């Protein structure tokens, strides 16, 4: 494979080169397609099983398709188990985290890039170290902090905690994007008589918006996917459950309702999937930007 794949010197005729090209790409193309299929398969299986009628799920003769797609599982999950409520809770928490994190991180990023002040380096290093702390290790103390704030069983506890966890990374990333905007733009606006707030929110903020997209995806995913904190903080208030923790309800000791579990999983995956595909280019380039900085 290595031999075929290595490009050799180019004295061949056009057709020969092209045929050689097709040959050279045959193996990689096949491998890529097989891997793509295997990687996508669990997701396909999830959606398919969610759409299968109950009889086919229980059947011992599994088929990789269904001729009788039905929304029964979704209806049962959304009405019977109150998943609509959990979906809203999750969305509310995740969107609050995204908006707050973007605004707070933007301000902090401006502070560390546009000003030079005592302890500036110290502050920067603190943000860096904070990213290395495995936040799950803080579950135990945070449980007591949240309890003392009287926020156990509230969605606010999840918003606050995820805001804290996403900020160090968001600030670190926004720093690069703010630094990339020429200061002359802000200076020109100020000479034209624009106030500080105007310069900040009307001039600088729109310019770093692409960076905010990449940052926001990470904030959204962190908050949306969280299981451990939701499980720890939301103990008795069933109404304030978020999706990942609520999904556990379906696991019964003897008989799992796989149709329901797959429907709930599909509901939980689709928003993130759309989000990811929509911003995929910025995702990787955003990461690259943060890395190079």
């Amino acid at each position, binding site marked *: 494979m290595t031999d075929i794949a*290595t*490009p050799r010197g180019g004295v061949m005729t056009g057709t020969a080169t092209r045929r050689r090209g097709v040959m050279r*790409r045959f193996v*990689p193309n096949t*491998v*890529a397609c097989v*891997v*793509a299929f295997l*990687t*996508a398969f*669990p*997701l396909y*299986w*999830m959606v398919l099983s969610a759409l299968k009628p109950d009889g086919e799920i229980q059947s*011992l*003769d*599994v088929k990789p398709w269904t001729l009788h797609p039905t929304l029964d599982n979704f209806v049962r999950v959304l009405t019977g188990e109150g998943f609509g409520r959990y979906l809203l809770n999750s969305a509310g928490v995740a969107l609050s985290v995204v908006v707050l994190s973007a605004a*707070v991180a933007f*301000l902090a990023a401006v*502070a*560390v890039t*546009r*000003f*030079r*002040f005592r302890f500036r380096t110290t502050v920067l290093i603190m943000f860096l170290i*904070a990213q*290395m702390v*495995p936040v*799950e*290790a*803080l*579950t*135990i103390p945070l*449980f007591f902090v949240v309890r003392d704030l009287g926020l156990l069983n509230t969605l606010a506890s999840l918003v*606050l905690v995820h805001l*804290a966890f996403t900020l160090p990374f968001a600030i670190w990333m926004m720093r690069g994007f703010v630094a990339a905007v020429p200061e002359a733009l802000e200076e020109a606006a*100020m*000479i034209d008589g624009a106030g500080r707030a105007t310069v900040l929110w009307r001039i600088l903020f729109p310019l770093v918006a692409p960076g905010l997209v990449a940052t926001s995806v990470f904030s959204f995913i962190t908050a*949306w*996917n969280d*299981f*451990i904190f939701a499980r720890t903080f939301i103990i008795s208030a069933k109404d304030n459950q978020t999706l*990942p923790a609520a*999904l556990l309800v379906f696991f019964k000791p003897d008989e799992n309702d796989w149709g329901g*579990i*797959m429907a709930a*999983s599909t509901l*939980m*995956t689709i928003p*993130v*999937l759309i989000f990811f*595909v929509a911003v*995929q280019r910025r*995702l*990787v*380039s955003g*990461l*690259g930007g943060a*890395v*190079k900085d």
Partner: protein
Amino acid sequence: MTAGVTLGRRAVTPGRRAATAGGRARPWLYLLPAAAVLVPLFGYPVYMLGLLSVFDYRQAQVSGGQPSTFVGFANYATLLGDGRFWEVLLQTVGFAAALVLATLAAGAALAVLMTRTGPVPRTLLSLAALGAWAAPAMTGSTVWMFLFDADLGLVNQVLGLDGFNWFYDRWVTFAVVGATIVWHSFPLVMLTLYAGIQAIPASVLEAAALDGASAWHSFWKVIVPMLRPLVTIVVIQSVIWDFKVFTQIYVMTNGGGVAGQNTVLNVYAYQTAFGSSEYGLGSAIAVVMTLVLLAFTLVYIRALRRGGEGL
């Protein structure tokens, strides 16, 4: 608009804004919202984690029935003398190491593969990888559990293994959970490295090929050195993720598997604290986990520095 006038006159470094009195306080004003969140909800919990780990803190102390007593390093001594802790620690290190190697090998191999395919297979692979990356840990766990379900799972039916339980034997369970985690985490490595390879000037790779470098050689001798900062990030990221894995183990093995045989450090800390109400001991485990990760990160970065690589 004194600030604006000052700006116009002064030198070119960002330092100039500190000149006015308002300018000196301003960066702190901008940092205030971040501090208001991070100090109580990040800094303080870190401090409190350390504090809890040196106290005898259990259910009686939580409910206020008994005063909490300072026990020094007694919790740590308990851990070090506990065979169960060592078993979990070693198991976690081994599991994480296997996951990191598998994730990096798969991610890097596929990134190189992507540079050699046509556009259609490449797009298919990217989209599939994005899907696996996007899938929440929770739903990834449920789907893989369903695929490997003893009675109704697809895998058993395809392989003709009637009623084989994949979540019974310790190592088989680790393998299935590990596959789920690698499925989740290889896309980040693959897409990041692919983007990095794209940024390498084509002439460099062509020159290597003309000089007779095989794919294997040009990967190790050209791509990896040129992408050192990216590789560093994905290695550290993978180690951190895989060492503190929680959701997949907790959900797929129902809290640690048969008799807790699949427990990893993060789950162990959680169970010790919230399951057995040993909050002090649980905190000590969490501290150990944090220190192991910090030590790894620092050693790794130092090794890179010594190798003459700037981060």
